[in-house]
């Protein structure tokens, strides 16, 4: 765990510059947002980094997918109609506490009780790099029985 955290700091830049390395850290990411266009743009962005992205248009749908699929990272919009991001995050942490959550918010201020739930908070707007860095930091280490290059 410590090696992952230590390595994480330098990895994003390397990942962007060296696509072949990015594959080592490929993750299955669940993106939950009730806004169709930003959701799609986010999907394109993360896919361009080599991750596999599953879209969900509401908190409800997101939780259904989360329960049936193996998910590495959840990218969650805080402000959604119906079930909001806070509720979804609580449910995810209840189901699988170690799954990292990246919370996106359009508001400059964050509600206190939600802060502790997410592993990263990203303010929407000009947050492209922040999102990529967060994903890179939170990608789980390559599995031992997987690609040999993971040891390098």
């Amino acid at each position, binding site marked *: 765990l410590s090696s992952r955290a230590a390595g994480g700091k330098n990895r994003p830049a390397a990942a962007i510059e060296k696509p072949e390395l990015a594959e080592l850290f490929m993750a299955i990411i669940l993106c939950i947002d009730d*806004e*169709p266009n930003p959701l799609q743009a986010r999907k394109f*962005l993360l896919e361009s980094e080599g991750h596999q992205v599953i879209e969900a248009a509401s908190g409800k749908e997101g939780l259904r997918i989360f329960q049936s699929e193996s998910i590495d990272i959840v990218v969650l919009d805080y402000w959604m*109609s119906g079930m909001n991001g806070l509720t979804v995050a609580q449910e995810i942490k209840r189901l699988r506490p170690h799954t990292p959550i990246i919370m996106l918010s*359009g508001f400059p201020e964050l509600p206190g009780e939600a802060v502790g739930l997410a592993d990263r908070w990203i303010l929407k707007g000009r*947050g492209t*790099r922040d999102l990529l860095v967060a994903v890179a930091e939170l990608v789980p280490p390559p599995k031992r029985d997987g690609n040999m290059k993971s040891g390098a």
Partner: protein
Amino acid sequence: MIKIRDSISKKLTALNMLVSGTALLVACAALFAYDLSSFRQTTLNDLSIQAQIIGSNSVTPLVFNDAKSAQQALSALQASPHIVYAGIYRTNGQFFAGYWRTKTVHETPPIPAAQGGNTRWFREREFTVVQPIVFDGKLVGTVYIRSDIQALVDRLKNYALILVAVAMLALLAALLISRTSQRAIAKPIAALAETARAVSRDKNYGARAAPTADMDEVSVLINSFNEMLAEIQKRDTALQESEDQFRTLADSVSQLAWMAHSDGYLFWYNKRWYEYTGTTPEQMSGWGWQSVHDPKLLPIVLERWRASITAGKAFEMVFPLRGKDGTFRDFLTLAVPVRGADGKVLRWFGTNTDITEQRRSEEALRRSEKLAATGRLAASIAHEINNPLEAVTNLIYLAQKNPTNTGKYLEMADQELERISEITRHTLGFFRDTSTPVKINISEVLLDVLNLYDRKIRFKKIAVKTRLPQGLEITCFPGEIRQVFSNLVSNAVEAMEENGRLCIKASRTHDWTNGYRSGVRVSVLDTGCGVGRDQMPKIFEPFYTTKKDVGTGLGLWLTRGLVQKHHGSIRVKSRTGSLEAGTVFSVFLPREPLQDQNQSPEVSIETGKRNLHATSE
């Protein structure tokens, strides 16, 4: 007060005297009758003896025909003053000799026939005796004596005198004895009567009748009377205490309080009233309270107070009252009728509660909420803009990274930028408020608001139906009216799941409550979850929310405040449950609300409150 004409004492005495008198009278009458009878008999006996003596003395004269001797013998009768006439007759009834008391008249009456066989009788106020004179077994003549009743009369006179004297003495004695003896009965009763009179005259229930030593009915009466007085005194004390407590309470509450007769005549005010208004009871009595009212509002107050009195229904109104410093403060006035067992109004009990501070703090809260609402609006604008901005940023990053395939990314980015521009265009309307009311088209405002929520409506697949005719113009503060409908539409959208229906209608209409004001009515209907019966009364209260995570609970409160500011009214009907659940808010806005200045804002706000019918179905 009843004047005692015949005291029991006098009555008892009279009764005693009557009884004694009657007894005496009967006794005297009996005595008198007996005496009369026996005297009559005695008189006749005497007369008979005298007749016999005369008869004996007349034998010789008769035999010797010596009338002179007979005359002499008869003259002895002079000793008996009552004998009117005595005569001696021969056997053939011929007059022989006679005696007359009156010397002038010398009749010779014939011998009267025997009265029923009797030879002596009392008749026509005369005693008469007819006595045969027998000598040697042979009838030789007859004596006839007549006497008047003067002796009897004299005797009776004496007798009556004695009887009267005795009776008087006896009655006097009876009176004295009665006087002494009746005191034992009459005196305690008289004392009781005097006590009763004193109690009823002086209202002194502390007075007590002196008890008697005897254990008779009078004693029971006195004791019962005293117990009754004690009970009355106890109740009096309790009543006084209760009254004192009420006065203390009424004087110590912070409200002004008063009481009125059933006809509306105010007869009592608490101390606070006098302290606040600086008036005196003399000035305030009856309808004097009008002097501390705002003359402009007084006709409305009087009209409604009279209507309450006529209908016997509780009175509720907010109006200003002038304090002793001359300034007016707003009071919420409540008056309830106090009814008797028969349901008739006995009196009115009223309070005036100073709500000036409450009004001020509500106004301050409303103002701060308006600021907060503005802040929230700014935050949600930031959110609304940040969303497409993020998409644009991501798409530009992608386009830079992969310059060969930029068309798709740029097209999406363009769409998102268009959204940003739309958001700014619409939301800026909220801030573009004027200091004076302007004429706006309500349909345009509603379309603007709908546009603002368009994305959310489309995302939730909500079907929107509108009936927004042109030409519905009202004069208002557009930003505030926009906020009113923005809140209502936002609530409607939030209340619905996917595939709901939102229906917005506007029409020209008249006020529900007083038909003369023309304006527009806007109804916002949703097929959301509905407002529960228990929530319904609270929805317009500040800080009431069912969406703790996103709402502050001030939206509808602010909405109502803004509607009231425009002299309009708002109503809500809602239905919960799976079938046909939903809510409809109806807002009435007058066409020219702000020219309606002859009504004071106090009354209008109050009127607005009355128009709020939060009914749940």
